[in-house]
């Protein structure tokens, strides 16, 4: 779809479509000219601040226009963007900021006012950039760039996009890690270019399209939303905060033509009776991805959006958003547990492998190995993880996903769960060991275990339940401490106190036994009280 950097490619599009709408967020619509002039202003400011190609710059914004101008400005400055999230606990944002070694932090007005709550103590070496008017108060002179110094620059004032090597990192996305801390996945401009090029062979957009952008920037589905939309001159509509359940209504009210959601969001809308047949006639493209897609969700969605093509997409963050695609149609096979994930995107490779990494015959289930130009070069500052997750076999460097699957003619791959303890909770990728680590910190007990529960059709979870071997534990205080360490979707819905954590014959935690623990069938535990929405 493009060569070089994302910034260069986008600026070329912005010049062609300068007066077309590019973005609507929180009631404000920006044309391509306005969006990129703001981004250029930020890029100019970052350069004046002394930031150089390859430096990391974090941003912490609500779902305002700043959520979009910030990553664009960072890319145009030749730096790599690192998204933080105002809905994450301060400790998690601080860890990501620190781990990424970001040299600057962009904040919008709302987050600037609550920075201490959202981020805790800020490293004095991190320069604060506050592009919006009125965001300086409360920073005690620590703002290095204010609104005046990142004022928009005309599109034709000279391209500031740094045309560095496409191997430069475009962004670092932090995902749940097994060691108790989030792990960084750097993705290069070349990775993104390969992905977008492959996606454009599946379907395309036009300047008439209005695309719903539903996920937060800390979820890499946002990479697809922004860049795939803008490279084709279409308009992005940012979902208002906390409105995920109402997506069908927003699609109807805003005449949205393309949307991108996790299946949990569609399922919740269906449960609330919002997926009326024919309710979304404007929709022509739907992507459901990020977790296994149950047939019932796909069917309900297609009934509500009779004019849509529906794609079930699969891929880990390490492989740049998605790596496989399957188009769901009325004659789609229904004899599998979930909708197939299909075939690899153009130029990518997927194999179901045995424990030694050897490819398995058609129909046999094994771990999914991925290879191709979309794969990250490796984790951020974690060579031990690289050694564990990447392996060179048969002349290719493969990423071991930990996902299980099998190949079936002619549909491609069928997802069959996980080989490890990673789960999807309402669309979010979660390592249960990370929750256990936080729980140990919160309750100062070693014997703890966390299971995803309850499990829905397709194997995704609505929440999680923790078990602690201490009948005297102060549950409320422990949960309160967990909330300060974990995002809402990772915080246990409840803690069950037990005499001891059950062990299997190998002396390891017997998670299967915990799944049938009587406490889970009690009325109190029948349904978790959701503290957050689906990812989108």
């Amino acid at each position, binding site marked *: 779809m493009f060569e070089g950097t994302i910034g260069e490619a986008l600026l070329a599009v912005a010049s062609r479509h300068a007066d077309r709408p590019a973005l609507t967020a929180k009631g404000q619509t920006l044309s391509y000219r306005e969006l990129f002039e703001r981004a250029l202003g930020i890029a100019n400011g970052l350069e004046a601040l002394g930031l150089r190609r390859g430096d990391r710059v974090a941003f912490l914004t609500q779902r305002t226009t700043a959520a979009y101008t910030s990553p664009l400005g960072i890319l145009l400055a030749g730096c790599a963007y690192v998204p933080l999230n105002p809905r994450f606990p301060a400790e998690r944002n601080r860890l990501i900021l620190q781990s990424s070694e970001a040299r600057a932090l962009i904040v919008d007005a709302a987050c600037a006012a609550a920075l201490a709550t959202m981020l805790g103590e800020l490293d004095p070496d991190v320069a604060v950039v506050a592009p919006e008017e009125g965001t300086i108060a409360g920073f005690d002179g620590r703002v290095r760039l204010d609104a005046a110094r990142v004022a928009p620059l005309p599109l034709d004032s000279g391209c500031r996009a740094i045309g560095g090597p496409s191997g430069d990192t475009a962004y670092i996305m932090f995902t749940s890690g097994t060691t108790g801390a989030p792990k960084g996945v750097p993705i290069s401009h070349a990775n993104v270019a390969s992905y977008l090029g492959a996606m454009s062979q599946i379907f395309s957009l036009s300047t008439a399209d209005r695309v719903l952008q539903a996920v937060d920037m800390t979820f890499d589905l946002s990479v697809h939303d922004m860049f795939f939309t803008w490279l084709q001159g279409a308009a992005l509509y940012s979902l*208002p*905060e*906390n*409105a995920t*359940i109402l997506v069908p*209504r927003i699609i109807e*009210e805003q005449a949205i033509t393309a949307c991108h959601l996790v299946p949990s969001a569609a399922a919740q809308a269906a449960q609330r009776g919002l997926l009326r047949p024919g309710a979304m006639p404007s929709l022509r493209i739907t992507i459901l991805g990020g977790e296994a897609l149950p047939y019932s969700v796909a069917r309900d969605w297609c009934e509500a959006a009779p004019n849509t093509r529906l794609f079930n997409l699969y891929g880990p963050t390490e492989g740049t958003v998605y790596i496989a695609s399957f188009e769901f149609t009325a004659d789609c096979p229904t004899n599998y547990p979930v909708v197939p994930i299909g075939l690899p995107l153009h130029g990518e490779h997927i194999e179901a492998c045995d424990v030694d990494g050897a490819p398995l015959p058609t129909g046999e289930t094994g771990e999914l190995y991925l290879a191709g130009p979309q794969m990250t070069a490796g984790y951020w500052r974690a060579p031990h993880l690289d050694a564990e997750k990447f392996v060179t076999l048969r002349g290719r460097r493969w990423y071991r996903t930990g996902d299980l699957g099998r190949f079936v003619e002619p549909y491609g791959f069928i997802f069959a769960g996980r080989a490890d303890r990673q789960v999807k909770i309402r669309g979010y990728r979660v390592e249960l060991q990370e929750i256990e680590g936080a729980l140990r910190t919160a309750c100062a007990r070693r014997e703890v275990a966390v299971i995803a529960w309850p499990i829905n059709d397709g194997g995704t979870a609505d929440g999680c339940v923790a078990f602690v071997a201490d009948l005297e534990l102060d549950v409320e205080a422990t949960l309160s401490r967990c909330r300060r360490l974990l995002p809402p979707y990772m915080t246990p819905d409840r803690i069950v106190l037990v005499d001891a954590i059950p062990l299997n014959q190998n002396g390891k935690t017997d998670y299967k036994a915990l799944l049938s623990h009587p406490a889970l069938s009690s009325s109190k535990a029948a349904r978790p009280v959701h503290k957050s*929405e689906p990812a989108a």
Partner: protein
Amino acid sequence: MTLIEQARPIFEGILGPLPDYGRETSPFDVERWDSVAHVNLLLEIETAFDVRFKAEDLGKVQSVGAICDAVEEMAAQSKARAAAPSPAQEGKITV
């Protein structure tokens, strides 16, 4: 019974007992009134009073009073539409 009183069982059904329930009750006073509860509340209110909020207006109604005022306004508009002569009655449509 006022609309605020009629709506009380809906608010308490989702948010739990609200001893200080009244016009001014808002998410700032009720810990369980988070963003998800807010959407659930509005959907329940819609069903109970046969109205429909615009998705974009979600964030604008942030208290019991504001929600009930919005419901009354929508109900009044709906009533006015029902009372207005239809284009056919005005002779604008010919078959």
